[in-house]
Each structure stands twice: as structure tokens, then as C-alpha cells.
């Protein structure tokens, strides 16, 4: 086999390994850092920055052979890192912050850098080196092979690994596949001596990891003084069950969902809403029912309770460790509630949205005007909806007031009456009919047996006083929380940042400095890759958010969206040489008819192929226009949401098209400069990653929560226009 094919196999494996490990590591980080979008945005940004830097350093390599001993050593490093990295993450948490406490932003930065650096620097470096080894062929084909590996990893990890294995087993499996890939590609070139060494090393490594019991030790570090009785990684999140004393504790992604025997939470989730309509025919409960809330609902003898839970694994483990109420009237439905409501004909008297406050874009979907509209359509005329926000009964800070205000305002936009009740959490009720604050009085008159929500603990005069205090501090006017303008996420993030000594100006300064350094270190060609990477990462986030808002969360579809993006990149870079050649031919024919000397003049001025530069320029313009019209497409999809095949097809095209353009752009950016190939590859690939890093963070954490989807799309358009302008006017580096 030629070196070219051997390298392509390794590149495919590299794509598989990097994406696979990224998915597993992010799951690990979610648990360790109780991740929200800001944490994940930071971590992904660090990942791509480090990989980009590794790729950039690759320009200085002098490797010419795949089987060079030093290169072999470098190929081994990414294979040994995944499992120890997962352990290291929990170890760092155990030694650096107090037991059970939340990781601060600085912790996330430090851990993210330490845990990801060896892997990302190495894989970034390897990509440049492998793409530019003599005989590799067209570097855009290398990009396509690497992306191809990522596509397969995305499918394999999300649909096989996460369902069948825990994180450690998944990480070890990735290592095994990587070592096999490296060995096979080497054996095809140089016999079995070097591959044998690699495989022997892999065997010793795996044995060491198993003997060290890293998985068990890691769990113990994560849940100090608790016995882990179940730990499963599911596509929807990692579910851990621990036992402390006589109590079982259920965690999802490291966040405590509930502990057995905790009546306060379950009673507060149910009774404030149920006493408003004490003879309900139908009740809808979204999540959180197994903590005991369903038992509380059944005290009102409803005709039917539809209980929606997204994660089937959660249903299974809760049933395994706790005794659950059994009733023919309870219908447990494994589905995303927004997706369910689109197709359901049911009408409910009480809707209980038993979810945490809107810390992520995904949870925020249940706090938006659009969801309230959908819920309203499924409520009887006297129906009541309940949801829960962070408490502020002793004191309401401006941050908490903003969050509570925007949700109450959004509810008031649809419902005539909104009531906020300060208990352990703030219970927010909304209905078109009258609502009463006298929850304890109603409980007593109905004869419902409770241990917390009753007149013994809740005094009506104090409830009135504290509810009035809250009402007084809420802002009646201002923005509404919408699917595409999720302002509540911004308020929730600001509230969360209040936990730490967060210095906004320092953060803004650091972010701006990093952005400027990365943006201005690009030349006119890689600027396009930078803005392109930024745009693609941003569009990916926007479309995933839009899909969830329009159609509901469906794990397989989110995976499909990511795969389509990668497929677009692969196709674009794969077809790049063909399309570029066709473009040159077509343009040459036209130009030679008009002015045969023009091309010679431009080449002598710029050193760039003017036809390709023009194509590059036009791609930038198309990306700019495309970014700006995304809101129009989304509006169109929303209006044809009933026609699911058409809307899904259009969503798929929206994902494929920009990714295709970026793939094509990558080909152009490594082809246009008549420069050393490794400089071109490292410059373009690192620019793509730097742009993606900034895009993922900026759009997910800053732009969408602050400005909404529409404004974000316009800003993306402007960014690409700037990229085009620099390409046209900038100085060649």
C-alpha cells in the first residue's frame, strides 16, 4: 500500500479518536463541573484553541515518513490519554476544590487546559504533519478523511458507546481502535515489527489501566462518602445513583435531581397548582415525578396523569431503587414534552413543569412564550400551569428579580392571572381563571394529608407578605423570553456567575484581547477560514436550538444535524479540487475573450490565482448573505412545521450548505497560496479551529442569550462581509 493510503487511514482514525474523545470528555466535564452552556462553551473553546495551536506548530515539522520513530511516539500519545484524562479530571476536582462544591470558572479554565492540552496539542500537530507528508496528496482530501472519521465517530459514540458503555470503557475502546488503526496502517507499509511494538505497548497500557481500577477510584472521587450503586451514561446524560445512610440520591450529569424521602420538594412541586383545581380530570407533569411528586398528584384522584420523562434510563433506575406509586391512571410517556404537545390532542386541567430553572437553552424551551402558547392550547379554560424558579424569599437580588420578572412577564403575555409564591423555590402559577395564594387554607379544607405544604409550616399572612415583596420587586415591562430570544438564559447565567468573584470587565477584556489576537494573526486567506469557522460553529448552535424549539428534542435528530454538518465539510473539501478546476476553466474562457493580459497582471501583483481568489471571495459573500437570511428560513420552517418531511429536509439543507462552503473554502485556502504546503495547511486548519472556538463560545454564551437568534445571524453576516473585505483589500502575508 502507498504511504498516501496508509496516511489516509490514520487521518480517518484521528478524526474518529478526536471526536469520540471530545464527546466522552464533555460528558465527563458535565458531571464534574455541573456544566451549563457557558462551561461547555469554554471547554470547547479551549479544545479548539489548543488543537489549533498544535496544528499551527505543525508547520515547523520536518517529518517525511509515516514510520519515523518520533512520529510513532507522537501517534501513541493520543491513544493513551483518554482514560487517564477522565480520571485526572475528577482527581483535579478532588484536590483543588472543597468536597461537593461547584467548580468556579477559573477551575474550569485550569482543568480544561490541563486535561485537554496533551491530547489536543498532539492531535492538532499530527493533523498538519500527516496532511503534509510527502505523497499524501491533496491536503483538502486529508481534511475530508479526517472529517469522515469524525462522522463515523459521531454516529458510533452517540448511538453505540453512550448506550452500552460507561465513560471509562468507552475511552478504552477508543484507545484500542486507535492503536489498531495505527498498527494496521504501519503494517501495510513496513511489515509487523513496528506495529507489533505498538500493539504490545497497547496491551500493557490497557492491563495497567484495568489493574489500577481507575474507573472505581474516579467514581469515589466524584461522590465522596457516598456509595455509587449505579452509574450509566445515556445519550441524554449520565445517570448516577448513590447511597448515603438510608437514602438514595439520583444525579443527572452530576447535578442532584432528588434524594429519596425528601417530601419538601415533591409537595411544593404539586400542591400549589393542584389546590387551584382540586377536581382535575387530566394532569400533565413534565419531569421530576419520581421524586414523590406523582404520589402527591394522586392525592387528588385525577382521571388521568400524563407523566413525561425524556430519559428512559432514569425511569428504570428510579424504579430499581425506590418504590413508586402504581396506578392505572398514570401514563408514563418517554418523550420530549414539546414534541409530545405538538401532536397530542389532550386538554389538561393542571400542567406542572417540574424542571430546573432555565440555565441552558434546552431547558429554556419550557419557559418561553412559544411553549406557554403551546401549553395554553392544551389546557382547559380553567387550566393552571406551574413552574419553578430560584428562590428569593428573604431577599430578591436584581439578578434574581430579572429572572423572575422575565418569566412572569412572559406568562402574563398569555395568561390573565400570574401568581408567584415564595417557598423553598419560587412557585409560579398562571391561569385564565382566578388563583389563590391561600395554599395552606385550601389544603386544610380539602383534607389533603401533607407534611410540609400545610398551615403548620406555611402561614398565610407571611405568604402574603413575602409574595407581595416579590411582586413589588418584579419589573412589569421589558423583553419576553422567546425560543429565539432566550433572555432568561442570560439572566440565569448572570445569577449563576454571582456565585463566583466574577469580574465582568476582566472577562470582557480577556475575551476581546484573545479575539483580536486570533483575528489579526490571520492573513487574508486564513481570515476567511477564521470567519468561516466562527460562522459554522455559530450556525450549528443556532440550528440545533431552532430544531429543538420547532420540533422538540430528539436525540437522534440532534446527532443527525451534527453528522450533516460534518458531511457538508467532507463533501466540500472532497469536491473542492474538482469545483475549483471547473471554476478556473470557466473563468479563463471568459477572461481570455475580454482581456488575455488581465490574469498575468493580477498574478504578478498578488501572487494569488485570481480565479480562485474570486471564488473564495464569492463564498464569503454567500456565507454572509446566508447567515443573514437564516431567520427567514426559520420563520418559513415554523410556518410549515406540520409538513414534517419538507421542514426536516429544509433543516438538513440549512446544515449542509454552509458546511459545504467551509469545506470548499478550506480547499481554496490551502491551494491558493503558492507557499510551503505545511504552512498553508497549519494556517488554514488552525484558523478554522480558532474561529470555531470563538464562534461556539460567543454565539452560545453571549450572542444568543443577549441579542437573540435574529441579531446573531445579522452579526454573523457582518463578520463574513468583513472577512470578504479583508480578502479583497488586505495585504498578503
Amino acid at each position: 500500500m502507498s504511504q498516501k493510503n496508509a496516511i489516509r487511514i490514520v487521518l480517518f482514525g484521528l478524526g474518529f479518536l478526536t471526536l469520540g474523545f471530545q464527546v466522552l470528555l464533555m460528558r465527563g466535564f458535565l458531571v464534574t463541573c455541573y456544566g451549563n452552556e457557558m462551561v461547555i462553551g469554554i471547554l470547547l473553546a479551549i479544545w479548539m484553541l489548543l488543537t489549533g495551536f498544535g496544528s499551527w506548530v505543525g508547520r515547523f515539522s520536518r517529518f517525511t515518513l509515516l514510520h519515523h520513530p518520533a512520529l510513532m511516539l507522537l501517534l501513541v500519545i493520543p491513544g493513551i490519554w483518554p482514560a487517564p484524562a477522565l480520571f485526572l479530571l475528577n482527581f483535579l476536582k478532588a484536590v483543588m476544590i472543597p468536597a461537593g462544591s461547584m467548580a468556579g470558572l477559573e477551575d474550569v479554565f485550569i482543568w480544561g487546559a490541563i486535561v485537554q492540552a496533551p491530547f489536543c496539542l498532539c492531535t492538532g500537530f499530527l493533523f498538519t504533519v500527516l496532511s503534509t507528508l510527502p505523497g499524501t496528496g491533496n491536503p483538502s482530501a486529508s481534511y475530508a478523511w479526517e472529517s469522515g472519521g469524525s462522522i463515523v465517530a459521531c454516529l458510533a459514540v452517540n448511538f453505540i458507546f453512550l448506550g452500552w458503555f460507561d465513560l471509562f470503557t468507552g475511552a478504552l475502546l477508543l484507545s484500542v481502535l486507535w492503536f489498531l488503526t495505527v498498527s494496521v496502517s504501519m503494517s501495510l507499509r513496513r511489515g509487523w515489527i513496528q506495529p507489533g511494538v505498538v500493539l504490545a505497548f497497547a496491551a500493557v497500557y490497557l492491563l495497567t489501566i484495568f489493574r489500577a481500577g481507575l474507573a472505581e477510584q474516579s467514581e469515589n472521587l466524584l461522590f465522596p462518602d457516598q456509595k455509587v450503586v449505579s452509574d450509566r451514561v445515556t445519550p441524554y446524560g449520565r445517570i448516577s445513583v448513590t447511597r448515603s445512610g438510608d437514602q438514595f440520591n439520583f444525579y443527572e450529569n452530576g447535578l442532584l435531581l432528588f434524594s429519596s424521602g425528601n417530601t419538601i420538594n415533591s409537595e411544593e412541586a404539586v400542591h400549589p397548582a393542584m389546590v387551584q383545581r382540586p377536581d382535575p380530570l387530566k394532569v400533565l407533569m413534565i419531569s421530576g415525578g419520581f421524586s414523590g411528586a406523582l404520589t402527591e398528584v394522586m392525592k387528588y384522584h385525577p382521571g388521568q396523569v400524563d407523566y413525561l420523562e425524556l430519559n428512559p434510563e432514569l425511569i428504570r433506575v428510579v424504579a430499581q431503587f425506590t418504590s413508586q406509586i402504581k396506578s392505572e391512571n398514570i401514563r408514563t410517556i418517554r418523550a420530549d414534552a414539546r414534541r409530545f404537545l405538538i401532536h397530542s390532542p389532550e386538554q389538561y386541567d393542571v400542567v406542572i413543569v417540574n424542571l430546573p430553572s432555565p440555565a441552558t437553552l434546552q431547558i429554556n424551551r419550557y419557559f418561553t412564550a412559544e411553549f406557554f402558547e403551546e401549553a395554553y392550547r392544551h389546557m382547559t379554560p380553567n387550566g393552571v400551569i406551574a413552574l419553578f424558579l430560584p428562590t428569593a424569599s428573604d431577599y430578591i437580588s436584581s439578578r434574581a428579580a430579572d429572572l423572575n420578572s422575565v418569566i412572569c412577564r412572559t406568562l402574563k403575555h398569555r395568561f390573565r392571572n400570574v401568581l408567584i409564591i415564595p417557598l423553598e423555590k419560587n412557585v409560579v402559577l398562571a391561569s385564565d381563571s382566578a388563583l389563590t395564594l391561600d395554599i395552606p387554607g385550601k389544603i386544610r379544607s380539602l383534607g389533603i394529608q401533607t407534611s410540609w405544604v400545610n398551615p403548620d409550616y406555611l402561614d398565610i399572612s407571611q405568604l402574603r407578605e413575602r409574595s407581595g415583596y416579590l411582586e413589588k420587586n418584579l419589573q412589569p415591562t421589558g423583553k419576553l423570553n422567546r425560543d429565539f430570544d432566550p433572555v432568561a438564559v442570560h439572566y440565569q447565567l448572570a445569577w449563576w456567575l454571582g456565585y463566583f468573584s466574577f469580574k465582568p470587565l476582566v472577562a470582557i477584556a480577556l475575551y476581546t484581547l484573545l479575539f483580536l489576537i486570533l483575528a489579526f494573526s490571520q492573513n487574508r486567506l486564513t481570515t476567511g477560514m477564521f470567519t468561516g469557522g466562527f460562522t459554522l460553529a455559530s450556525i450549528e448552535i443556532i440550528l440545533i436550538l431552532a430544531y429543538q424549539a420547532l420540533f422538540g428534542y430528539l436525540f437522534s435528530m440532534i446527532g443527525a444535524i451534527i453528522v450533516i454538518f460534518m458531511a457538508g465539510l467532507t463533501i466540500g473539501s472532497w469536491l473542492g479540487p474538482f469545483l475549483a478546476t471547473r471554476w478556473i476553466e470557466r473563468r479563463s474562457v471568459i477572461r481570455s475573450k475580454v482581456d488575455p493580459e488581465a490574469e498575468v497582471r493580477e498574478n504578478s501583483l498578488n501572487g494569488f490565482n485570481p480565479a480562485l481568489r474570486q471564488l473564495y471571495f464569492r463564498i464569503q459573500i454567500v456565507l454572509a448573505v446566508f447567515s443573514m437570511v437564516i431567520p427567514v428560513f426559520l420563520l418559513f420552517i415554523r410556518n410549515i412545521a406540520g409538513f414534517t418531511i419538507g421542514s426536516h429536509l429544509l433543516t438538513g439543507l440549512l446544515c449542509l450548505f454552509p458546511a459545504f462552503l467551509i469545506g470548499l473554502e478550506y480547499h481554496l485556502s490551502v491551494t491558493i497560496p503558492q507557499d510551503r504546503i505545511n504552512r498553508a495547511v497549519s494556517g488554514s486548519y488552525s484558523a478554522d479551529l480558532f474561529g470555531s472556538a470563538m464562534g461556539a463560545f460567543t454565539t452560545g454564551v453571549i450572542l444568543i442569550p443577549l441579542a437573540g437568534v435574529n441579531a446573531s445571524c445579522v452579526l454573523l453576516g457582518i463578520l463574513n462581509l468583513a472577512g470578504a473585505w479583508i480578502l479583497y483589500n488586505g495585504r498578503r502575508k
Partner: protein
Amino acid sequence: MSNPISKRQFFGYLMAAACAAAGGLHSFKTYANKFIFMEPSGNPGPGIPGRYSKESPYYVVTPKGVQCKICPNNCILREGLESICRTHVVKDQKLYTIAYGNPCSVHVDPIEKKPLFHYLPATLSFSIATAGCNFACLNCQNWEISQRSPTETENTELFPRQVVEQAVKSGCKSIAYTYSEPIAFYEYTFDTARLARARGIKNLLISNGYINEKPLRDLALYLDAANINLKSFSDDIYARLNGGSLQPVLQTLKILKELGVWLEITNLVVPSWTDKPDMIAEMCAWLMNNGFADTPLHFSRFHPLYKLTGLPYTPLSILEKARDIALKAGIRFVYIGNVPGTPAENTYCPKCKKTVIERRGFNISQNNLKNAACKFCNTPIAGVWQ
């Protein structure tokens, strides 16, 4: 095609932009705080004594700066610096409190919520707090006020005289200095307590007990009851979980008892931090050896809050075990808190073991006290009952 920009020109532009950015930083900060980070504005900043300031009586001027002598943090401050509790600043070599007459939290609560079970049961307490605390507990339920300065919170104006008037008007028998940490707003507490005493209103200190001897003795002259949160019985845990130390708190308990202030103790049982039976036994032994057998002890259930959201609720079995340890050690009145409906909220006669006071939440459903004694066996039940 336009002329390319040279590197020199680019850095020139960058410098100019940096200067412009620096010039506009102040206005940007105002914008960022108001519209992006939602910081409230209002009170004068640290170091600017104003309407809600008063010179503190407890400080010394040292060559290193002005040293606050209210609590064992003993902060040494210079102008522009804030004390650890965020409520004291220095101006012209004098120490000022900036937490005076500007509470951020004012409510009426049942006294059992403090918790005080043996002091004027079933009465209401006018409860106030300003921002600030001399601890930084990782599990603070009121972190939005305790870990803030009064310059950062939305406050109401309520000077000591007005506090007393409001307490009388709302039918409260007592004023509770609570929620955040009254030692951080010591001067406000002191002045209010003195006025309240003159009007026959009782004063309740709900505190971490982290205070120096002199200010404590001065304040205790006006205190009627206190609930001191004995957070653990380990210096190391005090340092890592709360940012304090154990000995000053123990000293506070002794002094309050010596001065005749009715005292109850709360111990929050935090899983993996303060739930070790050995440590609880050691704490109970110390209490017994120092004459606290009749001091009610509340073991409180931990809820995952603030930064300690990675821990579960305290299992009921652990709380019951802690209660058993305390009872076996000889402490007579041991309660479990934050667990609704538990029989461990009731007061049992230490001799005949019958229920003297049956509590349902913050209400008393059965009272078998007669002349401050068990009506079944006439054993005196320690407390201030009327």
C-alpha cells in the same frame, strides 16, 4: 484596490483604539454593570461613608492600617479597602460601618423559624439583616446578601428607632438580627437592641458567634436570646467550609451563658463535612463539660445550596444518629430541623420522657408545660416561656 495596511500602521491603530477604550472604560463599566451584568447601583461605594455610615467603636490605628476589632478576622484596612465582612471601611484613619439603617431584608417570622424553641414560643419576631458576613460558607442559603456589600444590594431605609417602631406596630415581641450575620452589622444591631430594650422588645441574635470578647460583652447587655450556629467541631472544617475558626465560637457560647443570655445551638449536618459521629460526640462532650446540658441543640438538615450543590440532602438516619449521640451524652433537649413532620421537633421531658410541647411546624399543637415544668412529673424545663 486599496493600499495594504502595514504591521506598524496596524499596531498604531490598535494603540489608538486601546486609548479610546481606556477613556471610555468608565462609561462602559456603567453600561456593562447596568445592562449586561445587572449590578444594582445606589449606595456610595466602599470607602465613602455616607448616610448609612457610623464610626465604629472597635478599632485601633496601627502602623499597618486601621484594625477592626469586632470579630476575630481582625481586618487591617486602609482607605479604599473593604473588611472581609464587606461592611467596614476606613476614612481619615477612622473605621466606619456602611451597614447602618440600610437593611436589605426585613420580614416578620415565627420565632421557631430562627430556630428558638425554648424562648417565647409561638410569638413573632421582627427580623432584619443588612448585606455582609464575616464568614464565607460554601453552603450559605442567603449568599446573595451575606456575600455582598451593602453597596451591592437593594436596601430599604430603616434606622434603629424605625426598626423598633415597626416591630411594635407589627405585633412582634422581639427583634431578630438574622439572615446574613449580625456581627457584620454590629453597630446597627447594638443601637437597635439598646432602643428595643428600652421599649420592652426582646433582642435575638441569630449568629455564627464569630466575635471578639469585648464587643460581645457590650452587646450581650441588651441581648435576651441567641441561637449560635456551631458549624462543626473542627478548626480545619471551619477554615475550609466557612472561612473561620472554632475557638472564638466556643468562647462566645461560654460568654453568652455566663451573662445569662438564653442560648440555643444549631449544628448543620453537612454530608461528608460535619456528619462524622466521632466529631459530633466530641462536640457533645464539650457541651456537657462546659455546662450546656440544658441548652437546646438543633441538628439541622443540609439542603444543597450555593456552591455545595454536589452533595445530597442529609439522610434522616444520620440526623437521628446525631440526635442519639447528643442525648446519650446527656444533652437534654435535642431537635432535628428542616425535616417536616418529624417527632424530633417536639420537646420531651428529660425525666418522664413524655411530650411536653408538641410542635407541628411552627405551631404548638399541644402544651404540657405548667409553671415552666413538665405537668406530668414537675421536672423543670429550661427556657424562657413567657
